[in-house]
């Protein structure tokens, strides 16, 4: 299985939001990672925190890769398959950089906080100054490292800003236990206490939620 070996070292350069998410998860807990890709986070959570971590992924190639690596991942769609999990089956349900790509973000969040005690959500911040500047200066949909496809090709059909997400949590009655804004390299922004600055300079938001 030498072709798969490099995955073992993925944790070293794990996608930065995954490292931030892992930092919000307590050891020894039950975790469901929605849109888990090749299973990097669940592998990391099992190996470093002894979590019972499982994944759902919509891309069959990624599912095959993850299961062939020995990770418990099933093919499934966040929009339709969360309904098949029982209440409170997990301590944490994770959705990393996928909230903007699901069809019904509000319902997906509801399902996450039904089947899990807590939800960890990360998403690219559409309120970042560069996005605002591109739209303002060119009058066209922003295209950059984070939003890297033209509007008609993007899977990101529900972009939101950090402030938008706070409003949704308020409307839905979720408690934001922790949150942070980070740049793409995973450095936490110094804007933690100033939401408007975080919304301007944070490239992504990471939230830890629970039911009220």
């Amino acid at each position, binding site marked *: 299985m030498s072709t798969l070996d490099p995955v073992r070292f993925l944790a070293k350069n794990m996608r930065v939001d995954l490292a931030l998410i892992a930092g919000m998860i307590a050891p020894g807990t039950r975790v469901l990672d929605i849109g888990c890709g090749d299973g990097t986070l669940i592998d990391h959570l099992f190996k470093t925190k002894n979590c019972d971590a*499982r994944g759902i992924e919509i891309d069959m190639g990624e599912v*095959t890769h993850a*299961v*062939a690596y*020995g990770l418990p991942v*099933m093919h*499934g769609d966040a929009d339709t398959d969360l309904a098949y*999990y*029982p209440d409170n089956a997990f301590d944490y349900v994770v959705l990393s950089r996928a909230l903007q790509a699901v069809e019904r973000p509000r319902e997906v969040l509801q399902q996450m906080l039904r089947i899990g005690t807590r939800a960890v959500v990360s998403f690219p911040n559409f309120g970042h100054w560069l996005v605002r500047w591109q739209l303002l200066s060119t009058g066209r949909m922003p295209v950059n490292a984070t939003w890297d496809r033209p509007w008609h090709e993007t899977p990101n059909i529900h972009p939101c800003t950090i402030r938008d997400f706070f409003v949704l949590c308020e409307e839905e009655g979720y408690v934001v236990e922790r949150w942070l804004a980070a740049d793409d390299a995973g450095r936490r922004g110094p804007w933690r206490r100033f939401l408007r600055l975080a919304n301007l300079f944070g490239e992504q938001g990471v939230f830890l939620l629970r039911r009220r």
Partner: protein
Amino acid sequence: MDQPATCADPAHSHVTFDDGIVLECGNTLRRHTVAFRTYGTLNADRSNAVLVCHALTGDQYVAEEHPITGKPGWWDNVVGPGCPVDTERFFVICPNVLGGCMGSTGPLSNRELPDGTESDEPWGTEFPPVTIRDMVRAQKRLIEHLGIERLFAVLGGSMGGMQVLQWAASYPDAVFAALPIATAAYHTAQNIAFHEVGRQAIFADPDWLNGQYWRTGRIPARGLAVARMCAHITYLSEEALTRKFGRRLQNAPKDSTEAINLFGEMFEVESYLRHQGSTFVQRFDANSYLTITRAMDYFDLAADCGGDLTAAFKGTQTRFLLASFTSDWLFPTTQSRSVARALNRAGANVSFVEFPTDKGHDAFLLEEPDFHRTLAGFLRGCAAHAGLGVFS
């Protein structure tokens, strides 16, 4: 069809239990034999045993030359040294199912008389109807006999997958990992319909003699061959048939008795199916075919739990891998997905993968590198969780 050359019945390694087995139908078999093969070595703490369950027309010769046909084992690309089910690491057990015809008790076995003695005539169609659960109970008896409390893994495709699901439902503590492949939790009306066509073909053969064909020394070869041909079509996909045969013609056999040959030619696919039919009858008993197809038709795991498949797996700690194939229309992905969802509801640890292939249901037996890689990886992950040591 000509009668096939009779093959000497080889001695199959087996164990016979005299303590009786009460079947789901209510009948009791006072004595039953389980023929089986093993590969690899059972480790000191008996924790590396893997049970392989065969499909409708499979048998215990999973990873070695078949004693009758001389062909390689039916899953020798999956089970063997260095294979996904590595016999250098695991102790693999493959039994012939109850009702089978390769040494386990079935319609070919001599009939039990009411006084407990054995008749010198076979059961034939008088053999009591058996279910997938009966097959699994017979296998459980074998596993206990071998001194194994918990199987590291149970795997199988098609009807083998049904047995895997039944194992996980009946004996959750005895199954660490379950791999039901290209299977379903029940047989659909379409599945049953195809089986019925096969059974009717056997009944229609004048050599069948109401199942007492041993009286003449002939077998209902024609009917059984047609049953196999019909079933074989369901194991393939249209794409696979097109790819392999298309509309190509070949010369019809000189001795052909069929009047419908056009210009002495026949389609290649016809020839292929006839070959499949004629080789099958050399190794398979018609009454056994009837018994086992019935067992599959009656399988409905949810029905045993008031219609709720989730209840069958409530509280299970078994780790599951469900695998299906895109072009399999006999046991389509929707069936595996609904099992996966029922397992999700039960809070089970489930992996679920669908593999792209044009090979149809048969894909689970064929060269499918992604499938094999996934089997190996899943078992490796389970071994780590079971404390069986990290694979090199």
